């Protein structure tokens, strides 16, 4: 923890509503406050459609927020013009989930990695640029013999290394990792996770690590935020979240992971009923209420606020400490 230092990334009441035909509104992200200290990793976990990727994109301004602020190093970037935003791209990068579709199949590996360096004119000539790209290949563990290969000749793990090298090419401070290992096999997934952690240590990177997989996020995160239908339902240091989950949804997520341990066989996996409700024109009330075993009358009528239940551990649940409005 960095004490009083200013967080590198901060959002305040970040909100994104997508307008649909007929005037309905899809609440993709509904008031999210994030704060990530320099050199730390925030894990963002949730199921498909909970808005976790949208948060990442809002922070990078790849999508414009409906309301709310994004602060980078204390500066509100939502007012930045194109030129300043372009400068900021040096500092903020993203690694996408699918290494198959996020890189241009007609460019060679070295061209893909050098592309951003060219665009931002970091070096005067081609030779220096390509030298830098080759260095990046070493950094992410891609053998230089692949420099002139095309993405289709490489496997998923190597393609993801290209994506990582490209994200690193401008010496960023902050990287949004949007499900970077979900498309990979376990043995390769472990290689890439270790690489991301090594790079973080070496270059003091700050990550926002978006994933649906709780067991992955535990290894890499300092803090973890659990999202459900556009809202943060729980935020805690990683060990605290696993040892002492407070929100029923976090609990359900943890219970639902099949563990590679046969001593737990036979016990029915505890399963929550129902499915995620529609994020379109959401009604007031806790969004998890319909699936929750502890649902009370108040849960159906009022939104629980995110409150600090113990130091550093916030939760949005009436059962766990949120106070009802009078």
């Amino acid at each position, binding site marked *: 923890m960095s004490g009083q230092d200013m967080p590198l990334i901060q959002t305040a009441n970040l909100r994104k509503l997508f307008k649909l035909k007929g005037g309905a509104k899809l609440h993709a992200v509904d008031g999210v406050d994030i704060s990530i200290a320099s050199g730390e990793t925030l894990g963002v976990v949730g199921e498909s459609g909970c808005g976790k990727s949208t948060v990442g994109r809002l922070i990078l301004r790849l999508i414009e927020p409906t309301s709310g602020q994004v602060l980078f190093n204390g500066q509100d970037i939502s007012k930045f013009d194109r030129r300043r935003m372009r400068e900021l791209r040096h500092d903020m990068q993203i690694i996408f989930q699918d290494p198959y579709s996020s890189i241009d199949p007609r460019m060679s590996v070295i061209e893909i990695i050098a592309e951003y360096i060219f665009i931002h004119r970091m070096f005067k000539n081609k030779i220096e640029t390509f030298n830098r790209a080759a260095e990046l290949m070493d950094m992410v563990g891609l053998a230089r013999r692949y420099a002139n290969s095309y993405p289709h000749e490489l496997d998923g793990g190597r393609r993801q290394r290209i994506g990582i090298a490209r994200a690193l090419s401008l010496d960023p401070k902050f990287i949004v990792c949007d499900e970077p290992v979900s498309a990979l096999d376990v043995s390769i997934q472990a290689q890439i996770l270790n690489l991301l*952690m090594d790079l973080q240590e070496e270059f003091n990177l700050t990550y926002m690590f978006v994933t649906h997989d709780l067991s992955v996020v535990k*290894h890499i995160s300092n803090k973890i935020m659990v999202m459900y239908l556009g809202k943060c339902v729980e935020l805690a240091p990683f060990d605290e979240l696993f040892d002492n989950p407070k929100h029923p949804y976090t609990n359900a997520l943890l219970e*639902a992971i099949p563990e*590679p341990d046969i001593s737990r066989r036979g016990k029915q996996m505890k399963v929550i009923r129902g499915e995620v409700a529609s994020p379109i024109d959401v009604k007031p009330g806790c969004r998890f209420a319909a699936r929750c075993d502890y649902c009370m009358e108040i849960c159906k009528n009022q939104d629980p606020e995110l409150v600090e239940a113990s130091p550093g551990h916030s939760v949005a649940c009436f059962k766990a400490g949120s106070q009802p409005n009078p």
Partner: protein
Amino acid sequence: MENKGENILLDIENLKVIYKTDLETVEAVNDVSLAVRRGRTLGLVGETGAGKTTTALSILRLLPSTTGRILSGKIEFNGEDLLKIDENMMRVIRGNRIAMVFQDPMTSLNPVMTVGDQIAEAIELHNGKMPKEEIDRRVENILQMVGIIPQRRFEYPHQFSGGMKQRVVIAIALSCEPELLIADEPTTALDVTIQAQVLNMIKELRDRLGTAMLLITHDLGIVAQICDDVAVMYAGEVIESGSVEDVFTGDARHPYTAGLFNSLPDLHSQAKRLKPIPGLMPDPSNLPPGCVFAPRCESRMDACEAHRPKTVQRGSHRLRCHLFGAGQAPAVGGQGR
């Protein structure tokens, strides 16, 4: 696998499958032997490209006809070699006595047909003279069984969520009460909480109907919770097989299986770094001459690079590794949890 005969439903022996194109020959499945016992579930585990799906498609004889070729081996179902019977006979078995559930429910359903009609289609196909009312009744029963209200039979696949679609696919597979269900990564495309729901349902139906199952997965967690037996595949070979107890808690473990366990992010450990298996799976069109895992193996010996290991049997536990030849049994790292 010792007392062959009575309780073995599906017995695959020395199966060898290749994909042949003008450019290269891919050895997808190499000398694979597996057995699924009646009413039991065999988990087939491995990473992308290990040959799991090819094995499953071979059982149903659904390999792509232009490239896929079964070179040798036997696939005995109820004592009858499926590789010897003609296509008409195969059609009676396929979907009726052996059914398959594919990974992606979004693409395995027909988007312009109601889900009720899709279930009815399977029943009609295999029960020629069944009256309409009887079919309707069976469609409703089967929908109820997989947890979908029967009124939804008139809806189209796009009106269902991913988890619900996979339930429909499972309903179609179970509609003819197959003796063997092959499920190829049935929950990989689903969210964790929905995956837990679908897995519980599969488990319950399997126990209720007594269906034997071949469950293909890359997730050792699912194997631990659902399967009775396990076979671990790597680069087209079964490198280890046995009961779940043999593989998860037994005293011997193939170095690849040990590596898989070590690569898993562990919910209970405090360690920050994971322990991946170095390197990548070999190119199946250019396999190493010795053990297929040797190039990545930490316990590699001279013999590993020279000779392909033979399968060693220890009770129900079978290992294909030179470490376990000739009676010696050095412990291999990677604790069962």
